[in-house]
Each structure stands twice: as structure tokens, then as C-alpha cells.
């Protein structure tokens, strides 16, 4: 009886959205600076890089893998773009170079995981170390600055009233959502994450699909790296440290189980917004960045525990049904 009432009173939206609304109301009441339009645009611009990474991380989590290399690949792709621009290459060629750099890193990771049968966290840990080493070693640990002005306007500009990074996030989201919901590709990915052996028996080429998914992850990291460099107006080798972790947090907060087989890109984006709002709130309250790191670390462990509880509960539910 009571349960039914509850079902009627709550509209059918993801539970995670309530957390976000609650957070927005609390922060909006207690911090006056939080309510300004400038601050909200700031959150959006800062969150764009993380959002793009998190979309890649979400697909990888859906097939049951994990990618710890995204942050390092992001900084490598950014450095590469900055280098090409500094050498007076065309804007298009530089952008293609950055995206291609990310794509190649993702492809290598994918090949190692799919054809070498290496557990994904070890392969991506190795790739993280490699990408970090290249971006530090190839440019001698230096910052590449003094990029052309039109490149700087790229991520700080607006289309109408919407910042360009947000437009890029939306384009990536729409394309991926289309692929995941309306194409065979998406169904195959969910099948692969749900049960790899069953998917293979159904005739899905699991190896090529795994490779493609990690390549998409790398490609998105490349795009994020370009936005990052454009925002900072310089290429820095240690800029993406910890981004892969925040992306995983966003995915987990968005309710995607680490076992794979289920998950949604939209909820992941809500997770990204929650992290962005939380970080912004902590910053406005005067907490330094290392406390933000620790608080987010505690947050992911709590979110994981809750997600795990829900997962165990759903398993029990299935057991009761059958």
C-alpha cells in the first residue's frame, strides 16, 4: 500500500537526479556566490573535459572493463596538439593530430586487452605509465605555451549563449547515445558486458568489439585533451592526473555496475555534474584541492558500497523470482 503511494508520488526519473537537485538547493541556499550565472557557466566549462572522458569510461565499464589510462592519454594528446600548433601547422591538422594520438593509444590498449587476454586494469595501468612517460620525456617535462590566439578562443568561445565545450559534449553524447540505443553496435556492447561467452556463442566478434570500445575511449580522451589545452592555453605534461579516477567515480555515481552489462550515458553525465557541483562548492567554501581529492576518494568508496548493495539486492530479488 505504502509502496504504491511512493511509486505514484515520484515521477519516473533516475534517483541520482534527486541527489543533484538536493545538492543544488543546499549549495544555492548557503553559498551566495554559487547562485551566479558566471559560476554556473564556470562549472559547465570545467566539467566539459571530465564529461567527455566519463562518456568513454562509461562504455568501457559497460563491457566489463576499466580504463585507468584516460587521464594520461588526455595529457599526451593535448601536448601533441600544442606541439603541432607551435610548429605552425594548420588548425585542422593539429586537431586531427591530437585526436589521432588519443585514438592510437586507445587502439594499442584495445589490442593488448582483446588479443593478449590481459586483464584490463593491468593493460591500462601500463598504458597510463607509458603515456605519462612519453608526455614527460618527449618534451623534457616542459610546458608548451604561446599558442595562437584563434586556438584559445576555441574552448573559451560561445555559440549563442552556450559555451563551445558544452556543445562538443552534447555532440559526443548524442552520437554515442544513438550508437548505443539505435544501432546493432550498442546491443552488442550490452550483450558483451552481460555475458561474454554467451555473446561469443551468438556470433558477436567480441575481440574486435572490445578493441573498438577502447579505441572510442582513447578518441574521446584525445578530444578532451584538446579542450583542456585550449582552456589552459598551454600544454602541460601532468595536467590530467586523476581525471580517469574522477571519470570512474562519475560512472559509478551514475549507477553503472562495475561488472558491466548495464549502464546509461545520461546518468553518467548527471554523475559528472554532481562531481563538478561538489568540487565547486568545496572550492567556494575554501577547502584546498587536496581535501577535494580526499573527499572525492571517500565519495567513490561510499558510492561503490551503495551500488554494490543495490546489485546484491537485485540479485536476491532475481533469486526470489525464479
Amino acid at each position, binding site marked *: 500500500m505504502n509502496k504504491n503511494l511512493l511509486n505514484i508520488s515520484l515521477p519516473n526519473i533516475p534517483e541520482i537526479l534527486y541527489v543533484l537537485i538536493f545538492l543544488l538547493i543546499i549549495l544555492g541556499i548557503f553559498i551566495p556566490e554559487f547562485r551566479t550565472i558566471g559560476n554556473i557557466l564556470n562549472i559547465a566549462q570545467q566539467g566539459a573535459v571530465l564529461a567527455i572522458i566519463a562518456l568513454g569510461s562509461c562504455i568501457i565499464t559497460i563491457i566489463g572493463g*576499466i580504463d585507468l589510462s584516460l587521464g594520461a592519454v588526455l595529457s599526451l594528446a593535448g601536448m601533441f596538439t600544442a606541439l603541432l600548433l607551435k610548429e605552425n601547422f594548420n588548425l585542422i591538422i593539429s586537431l586531427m593530430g591530437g585526436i589521432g594520438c588519443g585514438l592510437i593509444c586507445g587502439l594499442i590498449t584495445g589490442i593488448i586487452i582483446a588479443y593478449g587476454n590481459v586483464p584490463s586494469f593491468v593493460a591500462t595501468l*601500463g598504458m597510463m605509465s607509458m603515456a605519462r612517460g612519453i608526455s614527460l*620525456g618527449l618534451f623534457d617535462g616542459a610546458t608548451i605555451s604561446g599558442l595562437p590566439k584563434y586556438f584559445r578562443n576555441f574552448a573559451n568561445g560561445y555559440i549563442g549563449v552556450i559555451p563551445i565545450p558544452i556543445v562538443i559534449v552534447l555532440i559526443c553524447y548524442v552520437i554515442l547515445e544513438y550508437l548505443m540505443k539505435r544501432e546493432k553496435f550498442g546491443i552488442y556492447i550490452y550483450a558483451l558486458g552481460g555475458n561474454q561467452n554467451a555473446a561469443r556463442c551468438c556470433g558477436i566478434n567480441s575481440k574486435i568489439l572490445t578493441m573498438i570500445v577502447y579505441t572510442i575511449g582513447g578518441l574521446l580522451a584525445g578530444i578532451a585533451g584538446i579542450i583542456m589545452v585550449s582552456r589552459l592555453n598551454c600544454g602541460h605534461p601532468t595536467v590530467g592526473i586523476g581525471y580517469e579516477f574522477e571519470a*570512474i567515480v562519475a560512472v559509478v555515481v551514475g549507477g553503472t555496475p562495475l561488472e558491466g552489462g548495464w549502464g546509461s550515458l545520461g546518468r553518467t553525465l548527471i554523475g559528472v555534474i554532481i562531481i563538478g557541483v561538489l568540487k565547486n562548492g568545496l572550492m567556494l567554501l575554501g577547502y584546498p584541492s587536496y*581535501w577535494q581529492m580526499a573527499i572525492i576518494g571517500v565519495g567513490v568508496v561510499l558510492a561503490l558500497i551503495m551500488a554494490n548493495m543495490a546489485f546484491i539486492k537485485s540479485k536476491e530479488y532475481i533469486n526470489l523470482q525464479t
Partner: protein
Amino acid sequence: MMLNYISKKLFNNKFLLQEEYYKKLKFLILKLFPIFIIINLLIILAIISPEFLSFTNFINIIRQTSLLFVLSAGMSLVILTGGIDLSMGSVLGLAGCIGATLIKSYGNLIGIMGAMMIGLLFGAINGSIIFYLKLPSFLVTYGTLQIVRGLAIAYMGGNVIWGFNQKFRFLGAGTFFTIPIPIITGFIIFLLFYLILYYTSFGRKVYIVGNNISAAIHSGINIGKTILSVYIIAGSIAAFCGLIYISRLNSAEAGLGAMFELDAIAAAVVGGISIKGGSGGIFGTVVGALIITLIKNVLNLLGISSLWQPFVIGISIVIAVLIDQLIPKKGGV
């Protein structure tokens, strides 16, 4: 004819089918691969620089190897149970920092105890979250990595503590009959781990839990106790390494031990410990630590910037794991 003779000599005079024979040969070659790498590295080093063959450099390499080995021994134990501990570098840093402040104000004994307690605490936290909540170990320890590093930076606030008393300096920089203390420590840790892994029931349990966890449960092994103790040992080893490092460097700062966990994983994996758990041994870790140290030495002697080291570590982890996939497992098909 010759091959048959060799195969008879090598494999106890047993008659082997052609396929089985090649399988065994492949196994042998892949197992001997690390030693092959070491010999190659030694030859390269000897050709590059004449100083390499000096006694001082030899002692230096052995000292670096034993420092890496001590950290890697804890990591090996965790990897043998099928888990991984990414938080070791951060725990090393935090334990070093807290140990340093305690030594400065309360003396050696309390400082060492305090640092070891930090290691124990975070090991216990990792182990209990991983076991009781059944979460993947790499994610939990990645979370603790971030938290512990944040705590270390908050605790130190950008300060550097330096200048310890002579007694504490003995732990990392002292010598015993011209042999540096870290080498002796490394040797003791090796003996200890060897005895634990091969001659106690706990060591056997570590292997079974890594090999087949459901078989371990059904044979009545308390897997919770095993997993928890493994992470606690790893945490304490990390804290102990932190003490050795601050004693050797004579200073402590919040960035101590960043990315050390990758070196430790590389040493364990290159030494033939399977990342899926349950196979490999502590002697392999010694060989792995020696290889990683020698590779770093080659890079230094070639004049390549130390900024390239993460790249080399990453590539050696991936290659070692790929080779490990090729080795046919004992008892497997």
C-alpha cells in the same frame, strides 16, 4: 636424434609426444626469459661504461635492488592472492611523513611504531573493504591511493622535515662490514618471505586463494583471514619502506613514494608472478627487481632523462603480462 636426446635428458627420460615436447620447451624458454634479459643487460652495461664493473657500482645496484625488492615483496604477496595494491606508494609517503615528525619530537621508537601503525591501519582498511564488500581490489586501492596522498599533503602542508639523528640514519645509510644495511634488510625479508610462502600453512593458503578461490572456500580455508593478513602485510611493508627511504634521504616530504607502486608491480610481474594470482615465487621477484634496477641503470648510463622511466616501467609491465599469458599453467591444459 639430438633433440630426442636432449628431451630425454631434460625431462627425466620420459618419452614425450612431439606436441608435449614443444609445450615443455616453450615453457622452459619463457621461464628462462628473465635470466636471458639480465645477461643481455649486464653485457650492454659492461660495454657502455667501464665503471659499471667496479665494486662500488655493484654494491650500489644491489642496494637499489634490495630497496625495490622489499616493496615488491609485499606487492607480490597481494598479487599472489589475485589482488593488487595500488596504494602502497601513497602509504609509504604518509607513513614516512608521520614517522619523521614523530621521530623529531618523541624519539626513534615511537616514530617507527607510529609509521608501522599507519601502514597496518591502511592495510586493514583496504583488506576489509575488499573482502567484506566484495569490491575489486584495484579500484578500492586506487581510491585509498588518492585519499592517503591527500592526507599526506594536508598533514605536511608543503613542509620538508630533514636532519634525523645518527641512530635512525643507520637504518637506511649505515653499513655493516662495508655491506649497506638495506642489502641485509632485503636479504632478511627475502628469507622471511621464502619461509612464509613455502613452509607455513599461511603461504600455501595464499597460493590456493589466488589459484581457485571457490576451491579454497570448499576446503575450509578462512579466506577472509588470508586476504586481510595479506593486505595488512603489504601496508606494513610499505610503511617499513617509507622508514628506510626517509632514513636514506635524511628528509621527508609529502610527495615521497609517488608512482613507486608501479615499479613494485613491474618487478613482481617481470619476475613471473601471474597477475591473475596463484603462480610465481618470491625468487622471481628478486630477479624482477634486479631487472628493473638494471634497466634504470642502462637508461642513466645512456644519458636518457629520468622522465622516460614511467614509459619503460609501463612497457615492461605490459610485455611481462603478455609473456605470462603465453606460459602454459601448471595443471592447466
